[in-house]
């Protein structure tokens, strides 16, 4: 299920909780672009149909040396 668009207020609160001090203009500009990022995030999810066995490309391998 695609993520719902984030409101500007929620976006600003995310910045706050991340400890980022953004100007109003930055919040406006980044919020305006963020739907494109959300679209990318949806694209990589394969519609939620990915098997639980599908491992990410970055996995941990204990050092054998």
């Amino acid at each position, binding site marked *: 299920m695609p993520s719902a668009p984030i409101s500007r207020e929620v976006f600003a609160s995310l910045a706050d909780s991340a400890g*980022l001090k953004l100007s109003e203009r930055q919040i406006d500009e980044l919020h305006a672009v963020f739907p494109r990022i959300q679209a990318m995030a949806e694209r990589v999810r394969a519609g939620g149909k990915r098997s639980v066995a599908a491992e990410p490309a970055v996995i941990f391998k204990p050092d054998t040396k």
Partner: protein
Amino acid sequence: MTDIFTIAEASALIEQRKLSPVELTRSQLDRIKRLDGELHAFILLTEERALADAKAAEAAIMAGGPKGPLHGIPIAHKDIYCTKGIRTTAHSRVLLDYVPDEDAVTVARLAEAGTVMLGKLATHEFAWGGPSTDLPWPVPRNPWKLDRFTGGSSSGTGVAVAAGLILGGTGSDTGGSIRFPAAFCGISGFKPTYGLCPRTGILPLSYSLDHAGPLAWTTEDCAILLDAMAGYDASDPACADIPKKNYRAALEGGISGLRIGFVRNFHETDMKVSDETHAALKQAAEVFRGLGAEIRDVTLPSAQDWTACGMLIMMSEAYALHEPWLKTRMELYGEFFRDRVLLGGFLRSSDYVEAQRFRRELCAAFARVMQDCDLLLCAVSPGPAPTFEGLTKMISFDPERPSLAYQFNVTGAPALSVRGGFSADGLPVGIQIAGRPFEDELVLRAGHAYERATTWTQRRPVFDGVASVAQAAR
């Protein structure tokens, strides 16, 4: 001296004692001083160091001959490559006064090979933020046309090679940053297999996507540089512990009988590319066919898929790296890099994990295609170098303009950008040749064969009223 040499040409003349490394270096320094005021390829010229390197090289060569093809050859480094005792800024105010204690491993290897260091080259801020006009150094200019974008992020290297300011240089490629400047500046740029060249001492952007590699006038010159740069180093956890190959020696042999997959979907359906790009790719396929290769149409996952995967990984990793500085010294960043990297802070951890799961699936799709192909031919850019107008801060996220480079960062496969021709108004048009991971020599052989079969490397930008190629058999 106004002749511009390739590394191979200069190297042969040095070995024959017909060219002095000191005179060559002085000539390059003169050329840089004469032209770089308009081109802005360099952010730091290390003249004293260059002359010292050249004198040492010349003395050693006169005493015992050159130790290899790079002995006495003037090069320069992208300013994310740490250079001991020499300022390394990543083209950012954040690192304005940073002076590393150690050379990057690849810098040390190139120095050991006898290169002469001319200086540090412009880059997009931290290898992603450009072209930026709010930084302490000006935006590099394309020597083919000064109002055209150079491509990035290895912008200074691309310009410096194209304009004959250096004979070769270092770059990095996280999502095209060697291949784009190679395409727009009309030179050869090689992104090796991930892990072939150690990244130790290169300021990172994205750990699992960063690649170190060379840019030079020809594929042969790239192979010569790669021979020095490549090889296992335990300090880089991603570095591949595999036997070292001789990439220059592997250039000969032709490509007859090789199967080249022509990836049409990138430039025919996934995004709009220029007529010149269509023509260059079609002509390249014919050239390869004429050289005895079999051309077969193949389809890879879409450019949009590769871009989404690569961008989410890069944004997450880059944001994590920069978070401490973004919280404490945000005002020092240029606007382009700052606001692009900030967006990574709004991604969820599950976005990153899902992108890495998608990455494995995309790599499997690539591997299936490569079961029946030895090489790939595809587009590298939508057209020749554009003007700066329209190169906005958020262009990286434009769904109408997916990247044509990410597929080989996501897979870690080797990829080479070479000239595929020129537009009607004289701008170079790039094409891309790629291969299987750790078959870098095959990609380079194909690029070398292609350059030998075409005339594109004979054409230099006419920048100062003089365009010349070193005369043969001087």
